[in-house]
């Protein structure tokens, strides 16, 4: 009896052993690309992550701040989610079907998922959450839900969502629709309850947000950490001092200004990934003299993007040429050399357009974003070099949103458009009737292409459409597309497992301390 037990144990052990070997091999292989040393994930520990901004509210259906999203990705989940490449993966729904015409989506709910309050997730929660998002009284900040015509529960595990018309980016936008339990709604803004790998512990405004491992999390093997604290430190130098002192273990989206400190310290490391952010200098096409495409092209030729990346981002960024980040490689068209730096050509274009002496122009910069301000200071100098008298004006973020973004009262401005998963969402903002088309770009062919793209599900066709859209933006010189800044993460050497996503999130699930 005893012998049998022992041999069984041995056999199990050996199987476990081989699995472990395989796992280490995989880790070695996969981590090779990132240049990281492989190590066995270790369970437990308390990770402190520095974040620059205060969350606004933990009600996932009302939150708008990126600062909230980066934290609550670990608390809330939707029916589906995305992987590190931005591809759609199952989450609370284990599978789904899409009808031929692209209007009917049927999701099958995953079994055995629990909320942080201990209750089992049911289809009623899914319906409740989606209904809450659809309800105008909630004031959900995104508008895709208006396209839903019907929600129907087929049985106790399948829900059917019918759209009014085909909408290709539906899945990628549904990934943000958090499923929450109805009983927690009254206090969800300050006491979040979700199904994510970490459950909420406390939020001390201006100080930190603390999360703890959710032991009944449905994904096996993760998370590794016991506790995660998101410490709010607005100033990058202070965050860096804290990292060096060991009071903080990781700084995501590190300011490139302090990256040199990581290189100077031997117990810190710097990881880099694409940010999926389009930094651009927008041009108000309704303002004279920017109605003339030659002038917009002149401005494009006058700007040395390589120097901007070096000067404003300390070299941490990739040059772009249209409104898409190279991180979205499925749809990306490389137009970064469409307007090479050529001040002579810029002057010639200015002269042929009737402005040999240049013209005065105001460049509005959002004061809260150091990268955009720094870029703007350099851009102004470059414009002055070709004779355009650029004057800088700094505006508060609130004023920027109101005056420049909503009322379109500006000439030139520098801003960053954050990552989206679907090319439609990225490029839709240039259609003539888009509510926030603040460039005032109006282009028949472009509008038609975007419209067409919504209804097509064939990948090759979609690629062709969105690549053409990017070309139009470049040819028309709608803006100066500058760079996709790198996402820098400074970490202490002992921290591993960080993953980069094309969205503004911090995924702590796979993070662990090395032995």
């Amino acid at each position, binding site marked *: 009896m005893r012998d049998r037990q022992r041999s069984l144990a041995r056999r199990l052990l050996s199987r476990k052993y081989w699995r472990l070997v395989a796992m280490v091999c995989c880790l070695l292989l996969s981590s090779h690309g990132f240049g990281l040393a492989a190590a066995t994930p270790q369970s437990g520990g308390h990770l402190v992550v520095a974040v620059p901004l205060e969350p606004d509210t933990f009600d996932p259906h009302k939150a708008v701040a990126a600062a909230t999203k980066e934290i609550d990705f670990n608390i809330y989940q939707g029916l589906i989610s995305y992987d590190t490449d931005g591809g759609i993966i199952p989450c609370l729904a284990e599978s789904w079907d899409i009808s031929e015409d692209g209007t009917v989506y049927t999701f099958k709910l995953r079994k055995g998922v629990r909320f942080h309050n201990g209750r089992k997730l049911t289809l009623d929660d899914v319906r409740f959450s989606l209904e809450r998002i659809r309800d105008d009284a909630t004031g959900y900040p995104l508008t895709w839900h208006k396209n839903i015509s019907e929600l129907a529960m087929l049985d106790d595990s399948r829900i059917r969502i019918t759209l009014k018309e085909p909408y290709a980016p539906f899945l990628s936008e549904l990934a943000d629709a958090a499923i929450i339990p109805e009983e927690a709604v009254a206090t969800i803004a300050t006491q979040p309850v979700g199904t994510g790998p970490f459950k909420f512990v406390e939020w001390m405004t201006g100080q930190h947000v603390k999360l703890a491992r959710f032991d009944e999390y449905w994904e096996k093997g993760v998370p590794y950490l016991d506790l995660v604290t998101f410490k709010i430190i607005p*100033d990058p*130098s202070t965050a860096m001092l804290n990292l060096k002192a060991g009071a903080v273990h990781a700084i995501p989206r590190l300011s490139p200004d302090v990256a*040199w400190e990581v290189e100077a310290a031997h117990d810190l490391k710097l990881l880099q990934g694409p940010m999926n952010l389009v930094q651009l200098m927008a041009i108000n096409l309704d303002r004279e003299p920017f109605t003339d495409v030659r002038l917009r092209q002149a401005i494009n030729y006058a700007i040395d993007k390589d120097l901007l990346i070096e000067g404003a981002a300390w070299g941490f960024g990739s040059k772009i040429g249209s409104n898409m980040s190279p991180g979205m490689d499925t749809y990306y068209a490389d137009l970064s050399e469409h307007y090479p730096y050529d001040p002579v050509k810029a002057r010639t274009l200015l002269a042929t357009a009737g402005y040999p002496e240049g013209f005065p122009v105001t460049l509005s910069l959002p*004061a809260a974003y150091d990268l955009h301000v720094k870029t703007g200071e*350099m851009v*102004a*100098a470059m414009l002055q070099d070709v004779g355009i008298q650029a004057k*800088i*004006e*700094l505006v508060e973020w609130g004023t920027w949103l109101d005056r420049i973004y909503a009322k379109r009262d500006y000439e030139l401005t520098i801003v960053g458009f954050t990552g989206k998963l679907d090319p439609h969402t990225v490029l839709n903002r240039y259609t003539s009737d888009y509510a926030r088309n603040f460039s005032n770009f109006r282009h028949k062919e472009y509008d038609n292409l975007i419209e067409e793209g919504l209804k097509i599900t064939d990948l090759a066709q979609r690629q062709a459409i969105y690549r053409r859209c990017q070309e139009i933006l470049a040819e028309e010189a709608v803006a100066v597309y500058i760079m996709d800044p790198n996402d820098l993460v400074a970490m202490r050497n002992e921290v591993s497992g960080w993953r980069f996503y094309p969205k503004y999130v911090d995924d702590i699930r796979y993070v662990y301390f090395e032995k």
Partner: protein
Amino acid sequence: MAVVWREKQLAAEGREREHLWQFKPVKLKGGGLSIWLGALLVLPVLVLALASWMGLAPLPNAMDIRARLVPPSAAHWLGTDHFGRDVLGRIAYGSRVALQVGLGSTLLAALAGVALGAWAGYKGGWWDEVIMRMIDGLMAFPGILLAIMLVSVLGTGVSNTILAIGLANLPLFARITRGVFLAGRSALYVEAANALGAKHGHIIRRHILPNTIGPLVVQATITFSTAVLTEASLSYLGLGIQPPDASWGRMLKEAQPYMGKALWLVLAPGLAIFLVVTALNLLGDGLRDRLDPHTR
């Protein structure tokens, strides 16, 4: 230093009386040494401002990304910043801004404050009550807070900074002027002049205004120094002078990420602020001794 001098002088004279509220530097015609020392310290800043204005200082905004964070050298006496801009040139431009803001806001505060205070003090009664309660209300907000509030309404930049700091410093001028006017109104010689049928304007010009000059000049010096400090603080917070204009406070803020490897970036604007404020404090002390009869 002035104080050291003073102590020795006093010891030599065998006198031991010290003033209650401050060290009184030796009186070469009353506060002379402080005035001279203050003037001496403020001189380099004036020279820099003048050099910048006349285009003799290095260009403050010429960028050279390849030569950034270069330590002080023969080519760049105070080194370069994160854009490769010459720090000396920026300090020089910054002194222009500091003097501009200091002078502008002091003048604004003085003119508006004196006008309000004079009106309140001369008219008395309801005028006095209303104006002074408004002034009290303004004084409830500490200077920097009021300046922050005003700048966030008016917007940033040199002229709005001047306006905000000027308004924030107006109450003290109003109070001083009102005090002198109140005292003047009841003074015998004014009553006499009144009785003789002299015009209001004449009375104010001849009999009351001269008395306000001393305290106002002292207050102006103090306000000047406060204004320079407030401008530096506002710009440090990102609410004052805006790029590409160089400002000492903003230079400090911009230098902070690199202070571990480029100390000169912090020290240069820091010393500039320190120098100007010390100089103005000394000037203020000296002028008080010479002009303000009340504290003598």
